[in-house]
């Protein structure tokens, strides 16, 4: 029994317990202040809002673990949504059939993978810093999207898309289900595959990894390609949820995804970080936001609180680290 608990503790990790404690405090405080907070309706709305940010955060997570950053995630998602919208429009808009949707999804995933592939190749073969490569890709994709749409919205999609954004399967929101599957896939990839292992190695010491016989260039290319694919899934979900596509949609989430990763204990220099704590961090951010919302604050105050919260967590981690060090000496 104790062995099982120890094993469980090892899988969950100390950072998750800390974050869950944080979450409990946040829930208790908001629950005490606002009676509507601990209600099914509120948690339902959290469950629908979380996946969009969650998928984008997963797209950001693996590049950060590898010591890089992918600043192009939002616009990759937008361009993928645009691709799907374009395919649907070409097949009759509101009257488009499921076959057109399937084709559009494949095209969107292809576009996302291509955007990621280009970034990955440039990073792997030119050695330019990922921040810069993804930054210029972001500027390029934003320009491309604005050029194609003239800054406007595209809407009018078939009705059968609505359940993807708003439906429930066995009481679980479909977007949450998609996010759960994606997070599981990412967790398995990072902890159980050769590629995942190579990602951590590259994040820790890229030179040593190269000398160990890992194909660093192929791994880097794959990291950004998969990140692009994840952006495509986020883009498709955003299209289904809002029933429209606009380039720039979700722009404000870019730095929030980085914030969620750091809050989830991912090392800013790369090499360390897991999916589970990041998911808990995402839940905390969303709960904070919806709690503040119920208290009558707006999205901007949530943004500010997210920022202050990150500073607080980093400061506490630093102080805790120093305490344990002095305790040992």
């Amino acid at each position, binding site marked *: 029994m104790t062995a099982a608990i120890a094993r469980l503790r090892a899988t969950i990790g100390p950072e998750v317990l800390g974050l869950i404690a944080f979450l409990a405090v946040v829930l208790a405080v908001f629950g005490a202040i606002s009676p509507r907070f601990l209600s099914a309706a509120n948690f339902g709305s959290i469950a629908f809002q979380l996946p969009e940010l969650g998928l984008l955060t997963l797209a950001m997570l693996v590049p950060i673990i590898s*010591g*890089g950053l992918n*600043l192009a995630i939002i616009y990759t998602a937008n361009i993928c949504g645009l691709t799907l919208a374009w395919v649907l429009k070409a097949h009759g808009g509101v009257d488009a059939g499921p076959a057109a949707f399937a084709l559009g999804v494949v095209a969107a995933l292809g576009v996302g993978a291509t955007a990621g592939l280009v970034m990955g190749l*440039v*990073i*792997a073969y*030119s*050695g*330019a*810093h*990922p*921040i*810069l*490569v993804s*930054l*210029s*890709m*972001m*500027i*390029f*994709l*934003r*320009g*491309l999207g*604005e*050029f194609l749409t*003239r*800054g406007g919205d595209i809407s009018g999609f078939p009705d059968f898309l609505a359940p993807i954004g708003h439906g429930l399967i066995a009481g679980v929101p479909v977007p949450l289900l998609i996010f759960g599957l994606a997070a599981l896939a990412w967790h398995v990839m990072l902890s159980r595959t050769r590629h995942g292992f190579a990602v951590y190695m590259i994040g820790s010491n*890229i*030179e040593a990894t*190269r000398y160990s016989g890992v194909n*660093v260039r192929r791994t880097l290319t794959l990291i950004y390609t998969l990140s692009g694919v994840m952006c495509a899934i986020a883009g498709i979900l955003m299209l289904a949820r809002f029933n429209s596509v606009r380039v720039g949609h979700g*722009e404000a989430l870019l*730095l*929030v995804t*980085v*914030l969620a990763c*750091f809050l989830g204990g991912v090392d*800013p*220099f790369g090499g360390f970080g897991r999916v589970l704590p990041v998911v808990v961090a995402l839940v905390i951010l969303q709960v904070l936001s919806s709690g503040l919302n119920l208290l009558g*604050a*707006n999205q*901007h*105050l*949530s*943004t*500010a*609180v*997210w*920022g*202050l919260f*990150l*500073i607080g967590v*980093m*400061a506490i981690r*630093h*102080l805790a680290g120093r305490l344990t060090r002095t305790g040992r000496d």
Partner: protein
Amino acid sequence: MARWLRDHPVESRLALVLALLCAALSVAAPSFLTFVNLTSLLNNSAVNVIWAVGLLVVLIAGGIDISFAVAASVVQYLAVFVFAAIGGGDWAIGFLVAMSLGMALGFVNAALIHTFNIVSIVVTIATFNAFFGLLMFLSSGRYLYNLPSWWTERIIIWERQGADGTWAELILPVAVMAAAILATWALIRHTTTGRQLYAFGDNPEGARRVGVSPGLMWFTAFGWMGAMAGIAGLMQVNITREVVPNALYGRELDVLAAVVLGGARLGGGRGSVLGCVLGVMLVAVTQNGLNLLGVSPYAFKMVVGAIILVAISTSNATFLPRRRRS
């Protein structure tokens, strides 16, 4: 001359590309090489250049700053209330207030980085969210038009009438930009602190062991960045004559791309004022040229992004281990 070119590969390559671009544009678009166009190009780039030289100092010290554009907005908003409280003010007070407020915000970043030993990108992303969220929340997104008259008055520092009667003029922000460039150049090339910034950025631990104070370096770099952000905010209001809380949001990444294009290295220890200015100007001239050539404004960003992507992928090899000594 040849030796200078060899010692400054990034700057000389950028200067060459910029010269070729200007030559090509002056042939393709007759209105490019006119006083009216060139002066408006400078007027429109002034704010970005002031930010860029500030950011350069942070990059040299081995940090990164995402929060400066939002900090400039905060300074603008606070400055309006400060000026109202002291009954108007003038340019001297304006500069003093903008610089101090900006520097204070920079010090917030520096204090967090130094005290809690957090990486600068994490701190500035957090303060970016905190500054912007609080500003939008407390201001409710309200625009301010009721500004002191000295602030919004257009001050022409140089003018010249063309053959067709149109006036080419340089406005105050260009002079401030020149001063910011000179001051930053003096700081990083001609002071001990400047040399220490390079050393600290290149090897923080090594610099610390030879007696460079890490705290002093962070406060200098982010204080300088903050002061420049404040001044850029002041100048931007002088140009647009209004204070819009979210007007500068999103500009930070464009400036960052231009500065790194100019040879500053993410990770510290390298970068020059000349390269930084050339980087910003290259982007500005490209946009201006596309405009004159009649390219749709929606396509600007796309082309600029592609150019930066190409430029970065052919230089700046810093992420993968370097096989050649550069």
